[in-house]
């Protein structure tokens, strides 16, 4: 079932990752590999551990063990703020737009961590709504605009690995379509993307590989080529 990435092109390798919130053991030995420029999805029902996997990569859980290798370097012991410096960009499920900052202040907030990030001009070209609303407080943006801003915020930094959590949740179909186009564009620019998504119809055409989680474990890895024959099983497992 699994298709391991070419180790020479491997960007992210997670081995035997366990994560805890207080006394609760949430992840039970996650293993995954994502190659440079690939898009992988984490699929599963609510509570299966998808968001916790992203948060564990960033160090946003109270305790984690195992190994997280980024570009061949072990990063599991590093503090959260160093993760962005390693080139990891995070778009959380709740978007986390800062209400007391304007759109442009939100956009410019993260430090640039590497060269190759998108310029502000390119970002406004990709998300024209943000240009129109650049002086509006973050709290006055619509859900779709907040989602675009959350995406735009990490694209400027030079991050090469994007962790996107439920980016289509609660958005109008036209915005979802726009986000699909943005992800396709980002893939063509060489970004590596880990996508947590409930909207399987949105994720399926974008991803090179799907990891299916249940109760904090990966129960299946399905490549793009294997997807058609696994659709029935997936629908049953995910309840979609």
């Amino acid at each position, binding site marked *: 079932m699994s298709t391991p990435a070419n180790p020479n092109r491997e960007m992210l390798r997670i081995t035997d990752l366990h994560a805890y919130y207080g006394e609760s053991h949430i992840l039970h030995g996650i293993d995954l590999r994502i190659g440079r420029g690939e898009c992988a999805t984490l699929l599963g029902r609510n509570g299966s551990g998808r968001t916790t996997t992203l948060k564990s990569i960033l160090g946003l859980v109270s305790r984690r063990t195992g190994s997280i290798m980024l570009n061949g370097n072990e990063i599991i012991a590093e503090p*959260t703020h160093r993760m*962005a410096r390693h080139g990891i960009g995070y778009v959380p499920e709740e978007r*986390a737009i800062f209400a*007391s900052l304007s759109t442009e202040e939100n956009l410019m907030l993260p*430090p640039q961590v590497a060269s190759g990030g998108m310029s502000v001009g390119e970002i406004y070209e990709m998300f024209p709504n943000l240009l129109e609303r650049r002086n509006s407080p973050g709290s006055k943006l619509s859900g779709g605009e907040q989602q675009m801003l959350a995406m735009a915020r990490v694209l400027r930094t030079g991050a090469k690995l994007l962790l996107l959590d439920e980016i289509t949740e609660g958005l109008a179909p036209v915005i979802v379509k726009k986000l699909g186009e943005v992800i396709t564009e980002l893939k063509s620019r060489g970004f590596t993307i880990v996508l947590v998504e409930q909207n399987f119809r949105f994720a399926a055409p974008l991803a090179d590989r799907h990891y299916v989680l249940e109760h904090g474990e990966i129960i299946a890895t399905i490549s793009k080529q294997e997807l058609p024959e696994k659709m029935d099983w997936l629908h049953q497992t995910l309840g979609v």
Partner: protein
Amino acid sequence: MEIFGIPSALLGSQLLIGLINGSFYAILSLGLAIIFGLLNIINFAHGAQYMMGAFIAWLALTKFGINYWVALIATPIIVGAFGVLLERTMLRKLYKLDHLYGLLLTFGIALIIEGIFRDQFGISGQSYDVPELLSGGVNLGFMFLPIYRGWIIVAALTVCFGTWFMIERTKLGAYLRAGTENSQMVQALGINVPLLITFTYGYGVALAAFAGVLAAPVFQVNPLMGSHLIIVVFAVVVIGGMGSIMGSIVTGLGLGLIEGLTKVFYPEASSVIVFVIMVIVLLVRPAGLFGKA
């Protein structure tokens, strides 16, 4: 000349005293607001840190001959560094706990600091001369303005609005505002929040020490000077809205003026007027005048 039957000199001098007290309220409540905003800690040691500022300036002058101007710069740095040490060694362990733990710890620290100074210097006040450059006064026609008191207002307004500018108009201020809302996300965006928190506490403490040095020539320098003031300052913070920067500045100055006017028109109420206003604000707008519910 009389205004509402009150001699203008009396009214002017009480308003001036009110504005001076308001300047101290504004600087101290601003420091408390910044600290509470990012650290979620009610810094009960703020009064003691204000007292440390005044005492260190007095010690610097009497023991080492270090003048007021050097003390005005160096003392906030020294006391701010002491704040950094407190944050790194003690406060840091409390961030995930209830506010009450921070309040109790800083209250204990305040008692220890005050106890040490009482043990060393007793409770009688020490005098600190007004620097020569700021001695004397100016006759404004309707009242006499001591230059040093005018300087306090100018210095306090400069520091308060400089701090406001830093928070509202600079990148560092954007980090602070964002960190106040969601510090985990700010960290995930690559900003070193633990360092930001240390800086914020150190800066808040340095503001208290700055107020202490400003106060040394006008109030008696004694170990209890902070604890007398800090209760009113907490009322100012509650009225302005916990964590609100502009609320602290405007409310601090405004309440100082109201207190001054009360001394003219109804002196018996002057020591409680701030608390009466606090009760009314809490009943009508619990988040404070500038706070967000």
